[in-house]
């Protein structure tokens, strides 16, 4: 904070198996793995990167659910202080799309004022020949019309093909920064034990 770069906390949210950790890994070090084990993220559940919005540097800190398997066990503390939630579903699995409204409710209840970005992952796995079970453009349009301005951004990405991710992160940084410029509040009386020792390492970006 001492560096004066504005920072925003973004939490990943969405059903089990939609690729939240894959998005996190792309954000962290631009890698992809098909292994379902959690070993590759062990001990690390958030990462900060710096993005350019015009000439201004902006810090985005992305938080992963850290291997808590079912979202209902997340607990309220995960949402604290979040500026935004990146709500993820799988384009190839309509069930993960159908449960979005519950997640939106969770976010609105627990992270007041947080912006919500919607992200369809696994664009690579969409099969145009297949009839059902996938999320179609019509599904998305219908959902959006019901949701009426809930989303600050809507994206489709593929973590496997590394498609659309950097664009998404950059756009989120831009939207968040533009929105907050006028109402950024500083909370100087906050205390984070141990911060003096680690302050330096946290200031720099991960990647």
């Amino acid at each position: 904070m001492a560096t004066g770069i504005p920072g925003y906390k973004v939490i990943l949210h969405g059903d089990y198996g939609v690729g939240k950790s894959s998005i996190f890994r792309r954000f962290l070090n631009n890698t992809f793995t098909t292994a379902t084990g959690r070993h590759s993220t062990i001990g690390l559940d958030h990462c900060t990167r710096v993005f350019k919005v015009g000439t201004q540097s902006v810090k985005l800190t992305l938080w992963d659910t850290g291997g808590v398997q079912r979202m209902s066990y997340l607990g309220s503390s995960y949402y604290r202080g979040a500026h935004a939630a990146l709500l993820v579903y799988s384009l190839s699995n309509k069930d993960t799309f159908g449960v979005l409204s519950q997640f939106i409710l969770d976010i609105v209840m627990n992270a007041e004022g947080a912006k919500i970005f919607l992200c369809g992952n696994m664009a690579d796995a969409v099969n145009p020949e297949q009839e059902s079970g996938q999320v179609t453009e019509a599904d998305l349009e219908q959902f959006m019309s019901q949701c009426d301005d809930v989303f600050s951004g809507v994206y489709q990405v593929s973590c496997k093909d590394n498609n659309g991710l950097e664009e998404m992160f950059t756009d989120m940084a831009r939207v968040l920064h533009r929105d907050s410029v006028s109402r950024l509040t500083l909370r100087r009386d906050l205390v984070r034990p141990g911060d003096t020792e680690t302050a330096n390492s946290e200031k720099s970006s991960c990647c």
Partner: protein
Amino acid sequence: MDETYDVIVMGTGLKECILSGMLSVTGKKVLHVDRNTYYGGESASLTPLDQVFQHFGRPPVGDKYGRGRDWNVDLIPKFLMANGQLVKLLIHTGVTRYLEFKSVDGSYVYKGGKIYKVPADEKEALQSSLMGIFEKRRFKNFLQFVQDYEVDDPKTWKGVDPTMISKQLYEKFGLDANTQDFTGHALALFRNDKYMLEPCVELIKRCRLYSESLARYGKSPYLYPLYGLGELPQGFARLSAIYGGTYMLDKPVDKIVMQDGHVVGVSDGKDTAKCSIVVCDPSYAPDRRKKVGQVVRAICILNHPIDNIRGAQSVQIIIPQNQVNRNDDIYVCMVSSTHNVCPQNYYLAIVATTVETNNPEAELQPGLELLGTIEEKFVSVVDLFEPEDDGKDSKIFITKSYDATSHFETTCDDVLKTYERITGAPFDFSKVKHTEVDSVGE
């Protein structure tokens, strides 16, 4: 649920969550279950406000006291010593990154029906109206001595062997009964006067902890997390999950499965999860615990701050036992919207003490009187339990109930001792690798 784990932890109270985190970090495969739908067990913060009313069997009030979900009400009131063990645990495990704290505005002590700011350093001692002019000088000398005292260095002892009893130490410095009272209870935070006949090294250590904690952030030695104490167990649960721990809430685990005198699993009536070690709070092992006392607590909603605390938005007031003819101190904690636990213009005060009579609520009276007009009051009397045995044979390791102390030092003692009982060795903080991982790609 029917898998095999190294350890099954039951209950997501703070102690169980810290232990779960420590065990996951050291490579154990942990399953962590709770019968409730929320984290925290006894150490949860209830939200919205109607959940508090429901907890105490009262009808809901909706938004009568501001917006219901702006309330986060602790069931057990405690503050963190800024330089205490819990803060060290938070820093070493990296859990501090999940939480935000603010320091508590003031620390007060009760004397003769009035409350006074606790003088914690030489300068404050000289300004305090708590003592006469000559007593101030003697107290200043005592504080100076405590600051310089090193147990390992006899040169700093000034004739005070660490085994000298506390009472003698007070006499050596000529401190009167009043000064002894607030030193022992408001600085060293002893709950009763048993320490007077015990070696003074503990008294010195505790006074040091108070002043070192005070030096950290200024106004008081205490910290309190935004959104209430219920954030703490969640932070440690997250640590456990990151290191591979599995979480299941809303799981009515009611049976510990034994074989040849030691635990082999845990059952919810349908499935059995296998394990070689169980860690739990006393409520999950009703036939392996013993009652050691009771605590009475009154959670009070106020629409004004407590009087005579100079507008502080959060305070601790200690009523030393001698002042009100008791054996145990009475603690008053007040927090407010500055710590995001209630809407603006409301205040949340909790009065607590160890039960000594058949009318526990009346024992809180001196504390309740300090609060002024009370909008709502929720009184609870809870039993304190300890495990019947150390768990070395049964491999069932039970933590103690949360006592009446106003801070987390005894909580951490129990956690570290339980960890040692489980593994046979003290916790190795170097096992937590987060600091290295954190700096990936720099």
